[in-house]
Structures are given as C-alpha cells and as structure tokens.
C-alpha cells in the first residue's frame, strides 16, 4: 500500500493527496483544548498622532474541531486577530481564551502556518518537522518516527533530507504544515497559507488540507484573501470590515455559515450563491 504512493518528482496529484491522507494513522477527536473564545477583543496602537484602534469589539466563539475562515479587505485586522490568538501580539482589551485559559504568548497548543512558510533554512525537511516534538522533550527516536509519519502524510518522504531552499513553494508549505501537525496542536492558525502559491498548487493544497485537518481534529482559524477558498474549506466564514485606514477599527461585519456538506463543488450554484453573498459583504461593507 505504501509502496503504491508514487509521488512524481516535485508535484502531487489529487490521487497522491488522497493516498497521503489514506496513510494518516493518528486520528484525533476534537477536544476542549481547541475551543477559541474572543470577547470584546481590541488592539490599540500608540502612534505619533495618538492611539489608533486596529481592531475593536471582536466577539467570536469557535467550537473544537470547527474550521473557521476569516476574510476581509486588506487592513481589516484579520491577521491581527490571528496573531493575537497565536500569542505574537498582545490585545489591549477584551478576553482571549484558547482551551479554556487565557492566551499568554505563543505555545505548541496553537500551531501557526505562515504565508512565507517560516521554515528553518539550515535544517532538512525531517529536522524541521522534528523540531516541535523535540521541544516537547519527546525522545529523539520517537520524534524521528513522528516526523517521518507526518512527512509521509504530506507526501514528501523522498524529500526528507532536502533543505527547504531546494523545494518548491508548495512543497515548503507542506513541510510547514507537517511541522505543526507533528506537534499535535489543538488549534491550527493559518495566515494566508496558500497566498504565495500558484493557482494549481493552491487547489491541490486546499484539497489536501481538507483531509488533513479532519484527521488531526484540530480547530482551524484560516485567514485568506480568497472568498472561494474560504467557502470551499470552512464551516463558517467570518467577514471582517473596517480597519485603521478606513477610520473605523477592524471589526466582524458578519459570520456566514457554509452549509454545503463535506463534498464541495466550486462550480455548483449553491456554492456560488454563498460566495456571492460573502463577496457582497466584503466589497459592499
């Protein structure tokens, strides 16, 4: 079975992606660690012309295992919300809780996938994926095994000893996803993860992500510019509006549930209807 997993050099097909998902052995049920609670969250910056609210009054609750996409025009504060959840930035008002406790700085319970991958260029693919488990004091042998497992899940076994600089963008992003999954996070925070990829690779990655996250059981908060991508992947789409440049703090304009079932067709009329509705919210405000 594993031998059949022929991934042609540098590219993956949908079949390969399906095969990769088929080898996922670790299936995790969503648990309370993945609950996200944002209540009246705001972030204020001090500038020379006085304080500026980047985001204000953000209320959102995400249930464990849920996939929530966040869309909105540039500068609406969607990345700020994600970075606050990641613990990279400090909110200045409101309550931010993940897994029932307040967020105090970054932690391995919240894996982050960046648009620019953030891989350690001096480490091989395997060493990058092993990094997280090693930080959790997992033994060398077990970390090695877990890294190998997740590298296989993303279909990069043949590239385990390569350096990130030797891989395509899509492959690097797959390494970044394997790296956070190897840490078994309760929450996955993805900041425009496919934004730098070409359209074909992007489609493949969206397809793969849908399968991967079902197996990982993690709650996903997925920030994207692409409304189609949001509707394709998410259980709910959070539409943000405003932003410092609009003179209004970034805020949640509306939360749109996507009730299209697990198999989604981007060309289906009901898909397009949801997409249009969200587009109107994003552009019309």
């Amino acid at each position, binding site marked *: 079975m594993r031998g059949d997993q022929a991934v042609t050099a540098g590219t993956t097909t949908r079949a390969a992606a399906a095969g990769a998902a088929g080898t996922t052995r670790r299936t995790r049920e969503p648990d309370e660690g993945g609950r996200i609670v944002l209540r009246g969250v705001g972030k204020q910056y001090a500038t020379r012309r006085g304080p500026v609210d980047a985001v204000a009054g953000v209320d959102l609750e995400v249930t464990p295992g849920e996939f929530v996409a966040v869309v909105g025009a540039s500068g609406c504060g969607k990345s700020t919300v994600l970075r606050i959840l990641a*613990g990279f930035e400090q909110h200045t008002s409101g309550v931010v809780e993940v897994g029932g406790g307040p967020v105090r700085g970054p932690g*391995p319970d919240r894996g982050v996938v960046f648009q620019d991958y953030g891989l350690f*260029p*001096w480490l091989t693919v395997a060493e990058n994926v092993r990094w997280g488990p090693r930080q959790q004091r997992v033994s060398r042998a077990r970390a090695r095994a877990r890294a190998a497992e997740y590298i296989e899940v993303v279909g990069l076994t043949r590239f385990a000893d390569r350096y990130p600089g030797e891989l395509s963008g899509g492959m690097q992003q797959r390494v970044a996803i394997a790296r956070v999954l190897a840490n078994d996070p309760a929450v996955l925070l993805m900041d425009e993860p496919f934004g730098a990829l070409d359209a074909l690779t992007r489609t493949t990655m969206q397809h793969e992500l849908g399968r991967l996250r079902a197996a990982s059981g993690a709650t996903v908060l997925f920030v994207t510019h692409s409304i189609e991508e949001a509707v394709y992947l998410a259980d709910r789409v959070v539409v943000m509006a405003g932003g410092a440049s609009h003179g209004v703090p970034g805020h949640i304009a509306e939360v749109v549930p996507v009730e299209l079932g697990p198999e989604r067709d981007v060309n289906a009329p009901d898909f397009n209807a949801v997409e249009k509705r969200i587009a109107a919210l994003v552009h019309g405000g």
Partner: protein
Amino acid sequence: MSATASLRARRVGRRAGHAALGVGFIALLLLLWDLGVRGEWVLLFDIKMGFLPPPVEVARLMWDFAFGGVYDDAYSGTLWSHLGASAFRVLAGFALAAALAIPIGVLMGRSELVRATLDPAVNLFRPIPATAWVPLVLLIIGFGSQATIFLIVLSAFFPILLNTITATREVSPRLVEAARMLGTTRLGVLLKVVVPAATPGIVSGLRIGLGLGWVILVLGEANGIDTGLGSMIMIAREQVRTDRVVVGMIVIGIAGYLSDRVLVLGLKGLFGRRPLVRA
C-alpha cells in the same frame, strides 16, 4: 546524461578560464615589476622602481628563506619558524577575539538592555586605531608576544562584534515566531535559531577579523620580538634589505590568503551541505 555532462564540462572549462585570467594578471604584474626595475621607472608618489629588487632575485631569496642552500646566511631556511611564530600569534588573537565578540555581539543584537549598556563604550573604543594603541600597550604590557596578541585581539574584535550584532538583529522575526509557536524557550530561540540564522553574517565578520589580524601582525612584532614575519621585515628595513622586506610581505600575503581559505573551507566542512556560509 550527456546534457548534464556537457553542462559540467562547460562549468569546469569556465572555471579554468577564470583561473587562467587571474594567473595571467599576476604574471603581467610580475613582468611590469621586472621592466620597471630594469628601466628604473619613477611612478606616481615618487615611487622609485629602481630601488626594488627584480622579481627573480626575490624568488631566489624566497627559496633560500624557505629551504636554504643558496646564500646560507642567518636567514636561510628560517621561513617556517618565523611563519609558525606569526601564525600562532594571529590565530591566538583571532580565536580570543572571536570567543569574546560572538557572544557579546549576539547579546547586543538581541537585547535592547545589553545594547543600551554597551553601545556607547563600543563606539568610543572602536575608532581608536591599533597604531594608536601601540605606545600604551608597550608601556603597560611591555615588549613581546603578549603585546602583539593583545593588539590582534583588539583589532579583530570590532569587525566580528559589529557583524555579529548586525546579523543577529536582522534575523527574520518570522523564524523566531515559528520557533516560539513550536514551543521553543527564549534561550532555545537564541541558541538554536538566532545563532544559526546569523551565521553567514558572523562568518563575514570572522573573515574580516582574521585578515586584520595579519595586518596588525607587523605592527605588533615591530618591537622587541626576534621571531616572526613582522619582526623579520622590520629588521630587514633597518639593514636596508629591500629584497628581504619584499619576501616578508609576500609571505604574509600568502599566509593571510591561505588562512582565509582554511577558515572558509573548514567551516564549510563543518556545516556540510547546510546553507550557512556564503560562497
């Protein structure tokens, strides 16, 4: 197969071509040197080429300096002991400078508190050239190897420090965020992310520092030392032995070049395929 072979052949050919160009240019300089000496050219700055020994004579002296058997005087065959003494001073000073400058530079690059504390002092000491230190060093350390090594430490320290500070400050915040969200401690980030990410810049600083070590060598060995390339040059100057001065200069040049190659290739050997050193 044949396509990659021909590509490789072309690359080897191009490299050989470049090497031939470089060697050819040196040959041209030697030729001009020889012509200048014979023709007693007077160049810019009143450089009197006629006062120089011709290259053939320098080559003969160099041979004698290295292996003896030509003149058989007090200097014949002593190259290696002079070179050994000088190389030891340069390497000791360089190693000490690196051992001090890298950790201090990493801390200054990553901690505003440390930077605020040390930056004014660094900027006060940095512009003082090694030449200006010599009289003070001779008074408070005295003639000898220690004074030379101290001057080398002093001059190699600042380029390594400044390159380390810049390189650690420029480490992509993304890499730090990535490490933190994977559960890396702050100390772990410093040692396992900042230091490797800054390595190419630190290596640039090391190369400049090592080069400066050879520059300062002559200055340090000018006083009260009888073994070393610098002291040999200074004694030759007193004896008006232009040929011996030139031989000493060439040996220092070659030693400096080789030590840089050894440093770079050694680090590359240490790091293997890891992309940590530029070119």
